[in-house]
């Protein structure tokens, strides 16, 4: 049988019954009786997202409250500026700074420690962090160094006072996460690996001293940003004795609208970060949810990385502490 013949047969069969009824009134009547409006799924999704964010914020706010209660009687005594040799070698932004750069007027009052033991040149490609409780160090993990043969060689004790734990592969990270899955360590993952930022927290308290980790942010991903070489220091003040810093380095803007991004960054840093915060949100891979509180976030921008700017930043941060 040829297709045309088949078509005729089917058409004749389909068309043999002519439906003359009009069901529009019945349908309308049924709609009006039952539903009223079409479902707006997008609104539902939005509502769920808002509720999730609210719940997450509430959870972290509770954690913060506990921390606050624990540390209220533990004021900042001293903060130092200590650029490391390693940092100087790896990032010329810090070249020429030393502890002696701490100006006299900042000594004796809460000052700032710039801990540059962290390799700022490396992007955390794996995007994972293992954090302990907030009274201990929050360790950042980068893939810039080879993995020790034995996972037990990770010096967590050292890490707790500022050493980097290097996890170069996903497998190693998983192994490490598994190792500590029953302890108070939590594994975090970044949503994206492409636009990953070197995000780490360092809110370590040693004795009565607070350590602030301040890292410069240099936009080096795009020529447009290189022209300006803007530096941003984002400090999140969690409580009187601790500050969190978000460092963004080597950002890849290849997928972004350059001009728009540039304009946003130049004209309104706060908006830019707020937008990116969503993109770089951190989600826990396990049930425990601990999120940084971004509500008290402060962003400081400087046209270049100079001693004066750093000192200005230190003063501002200390001003935060005094609030």
């Amino acid at each position, binding site marked *: *049988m040829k*297709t045309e013949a*088949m*078509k005729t*047969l*089917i*058409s*004749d*069969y*389909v*068309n*043999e*019954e*002519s*439906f003359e*009824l*009009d*069901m*529009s*009134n*019945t*349908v*309308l009547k*049924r*709609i*009006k009786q*039952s*539903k*009223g*409006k*079409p*479902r*707006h*799924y*997008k609104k539902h999704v939005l509502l769920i997202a808002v509720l999730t964010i609210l719940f997450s914020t509430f959870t972290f706010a509770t954690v913060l409250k506990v921390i606050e209660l624990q540390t209220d009687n533990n004021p900042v005594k001293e903060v130092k500026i200590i650029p490391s040799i390693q940092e100087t070698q790896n990032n010329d932004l810090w070249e020429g700074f030393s502890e002696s750069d701490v100006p006299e007027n900042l000594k004796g009052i809460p000052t700032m420690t710039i801990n540059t033991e962290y390799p700022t040149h490396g992007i955390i490609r794996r995007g994972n962090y293992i954090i302990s409780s907030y009274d201990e160090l929050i360790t950042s993990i980068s893939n810039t160094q080879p993995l020790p043969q034995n996972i037990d060689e990770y010096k967590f004790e050292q890490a707790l006072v500022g050493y980097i734990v290097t996890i170069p592969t996903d497998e190693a990270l998983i192994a490490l996460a598994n190792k500590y899955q029953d302890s108070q360590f939590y594994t975090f993952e970044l949503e994206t690996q492409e636009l990953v930022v070197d995000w780490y927290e360092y809110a370590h308290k040693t004795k009565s001293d607070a350590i602030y980790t301040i890292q410069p942010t240099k936009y080096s991903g795009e020529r447009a940003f290189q022209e300006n070489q803007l530096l941003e220091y984002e400090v999140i003040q969690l409580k009187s004795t601790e500050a969190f810093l978000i460092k963004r380095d080597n950002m890849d803007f290849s997928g972004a609208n350059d001009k728009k991004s540039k304009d946003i960054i130049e004209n309104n840093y706060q908006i830019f970060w707020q937008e990116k915060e969503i993109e770089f949100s951190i989600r826990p891979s396990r049930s425990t949810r601990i999120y940084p509180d971004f509500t008290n976030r402060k962003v400081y921008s400087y046209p270049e990385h100079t001693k004066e700017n750093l000192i200005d930043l230190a003063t501002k941060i200390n001003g935060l502490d005094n609030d």
Partner: protein
Amino acid sequence: MGQQEIENAIERVLNGQIDDYSLIVKQYQKQLLKYVRYLTNGKCDVEDIVQEVFIRIYQNLSKYQLGTSFSNWAYRITFNHTMNMLKKQNRHKILLFGKIPEYAQSPNSSSEISHEVKEALSKLSIEERNLIYLRVYEDLSYRKISQIQNVSESALRKKYERARKKFIKAYIKEDSDYENRSNENTDIRLCK
């Protein structure tokens, strides 16, 4: 009504002018009635199904992507709903150990050819019937059908070819059976 007018009507409905939904119903009711009648092959109450389909379309109207074929979208919803209805009916059939009643059709629907086509179609699954409808009657390209069905084009071609051969085989058998029956009747009449 053209695609643009349909989309305008949809927007008005979504903005609360529910009465304008009647325009969409009027535009597509015949098309969908024929489609469902074909798919069910007279095994369901076509009007009930199509009414239900229009309510589902209404409820999901905000999901419809403007700029795409409304007709294809409606076909998809209709097919899914009809398939569910047939499945439900089959479950009832098993439970009741009975035969599904044939729904009343218009008097002119029982031509000889129609009967043979209907019998041949009954040998096909609903998916196969659907493919033949969209491809042969609606003359849709494989690409469009693949969008409606959400399957790959190559898989669709194979399925269609199988369905077509199955239909032809079933139809030819029905046709020869019918001829045999006709001859027998003629012989009986001659004997009388």
